[in-house]
């Protein structure tokens, strides 16, 4: 949840990348880390198994230039996708201001995407929240692979809330930055509505 560090004048927001195992969550963060201006990010940490699978989370923080004396910072997390890390996912998801659901576009992974979406909804409910009100976006990753489902079909199955959908090939960086910008926009729109920020002139 949003926090304000009054000493450093930082507004801190938390974005969590969710989705089934091997859908590209870590790949998204890795791309952002390698391509962002280093002056605007900290180090990235990845808690992984020996097989390079996320076991707890990946984390990095990005900072924007100050706006009216306040510096927005965004903590980016990924969750482990494998089903037996359910408790870890719940821990990392707690307090998320925005969520990126990274779906694997391959036909054979549809059930994994659906299971993960259900898992996400159940975890949110435990925190008194739902996908209907949390700011989130749907990233359809791996659009370069053969035997993928059409975007329309994936939207129908996974995006019943009508949130922004973005296509991506995260391993090449395609759609990665756009996804991050879009989810941050969704978070800010939500904050404006929730805290009754007056509309601009």
């Amino acid at each position, binding site marked *: *949840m*949003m*926090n*304000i*560090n*009054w*000493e450093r004048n930082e*507004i*801190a927001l*938390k974005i969590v990348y969710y989705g089934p195992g091997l859908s590209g969550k870590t790949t998204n963060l890795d791309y*952002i880390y390698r*391509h*962002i*201006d280093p002056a*605007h990010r*900290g*180090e990235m*940490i990845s808690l992984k198994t020996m097989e390079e699978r996320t076991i*707890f*989370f990946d*984390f990095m*923080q*990005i900072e*924007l*230039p100050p*706006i*009216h004396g*306040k510096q*927005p*910072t965004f*903590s980016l*997390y990924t969750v482990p996708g494998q089903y037996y890390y359910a*408790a*870890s996912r*719940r*821990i*990392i998801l*707690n*307090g*998320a201001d925005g969520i990126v659901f990274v779906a694997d576009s391959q036909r054979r992974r549809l059930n994994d995407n659906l299971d993960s979406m259900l898992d996400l909804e159940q975890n949110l409910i*435990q*925190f*008194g*929240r739902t996908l209907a009100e949390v700011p989130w976006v749907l990233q359809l990753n791996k659009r370069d692979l053969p035997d993928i489902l059409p975007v329309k079909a994936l939207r129908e199955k996974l995006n019943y809330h009508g949130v922004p959908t973005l296509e991506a090939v995260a391993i090449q960086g395609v759609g990665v*930055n756009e996804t*991050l*910008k879009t989810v*941050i*926009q969704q978070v*800010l*729109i939500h*904050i*404006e509505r929730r*805290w*009754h*920020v*007056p*509309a*601009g*002139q």
Partner: protein
Amino acid sequence: MTQETPPPAAAPKQQILLSEEQYHQISQELELLRAKLKSQLVLFGDLNGQLISQKGSLPGVDMPILAALISSDFSATSEIARLLGRENRFRLHFHEGTRRNLYIASVSEQFFLAVIFDPSVTLGMVRIFTQKSIDKIETIIRTSFDEMVKISNVIDAEFKSYVNEGLDRILD
């Protein structure tokens, strides 16, 4: 063999957003604690992973990463406590290192206070002084100030477009 179902996670509490006055009072208390324990570093953050205040430093250590690891460590261990019994909670954690020790305690169920200290300082002293600080901090958190946080004073209508411009500059 039957298996007991673990108790459900606790119902969510309303998030506390600290005002500037609360923040400064808490920061003062953290500095006092650091001085009493001659600690290298005292951190205050929320259990979602955000660093809120820091007194002292550890050269070469990325503080946001440290805060994220400490909060997730505390949260993960809290899950263990919950599995061990419905009303069970671990209120503090202590990690004994070869060069530095780490003491973490929860504050108002939403925050953590972490103290990194030299092995020459006794754990008992750390516990006593940290608990006194926590009691004061929890009082500060419970106190309502006349000037509550007005988000619209911090995030105005143009904030969104400035964030957009900032992201365009640093990402592309």
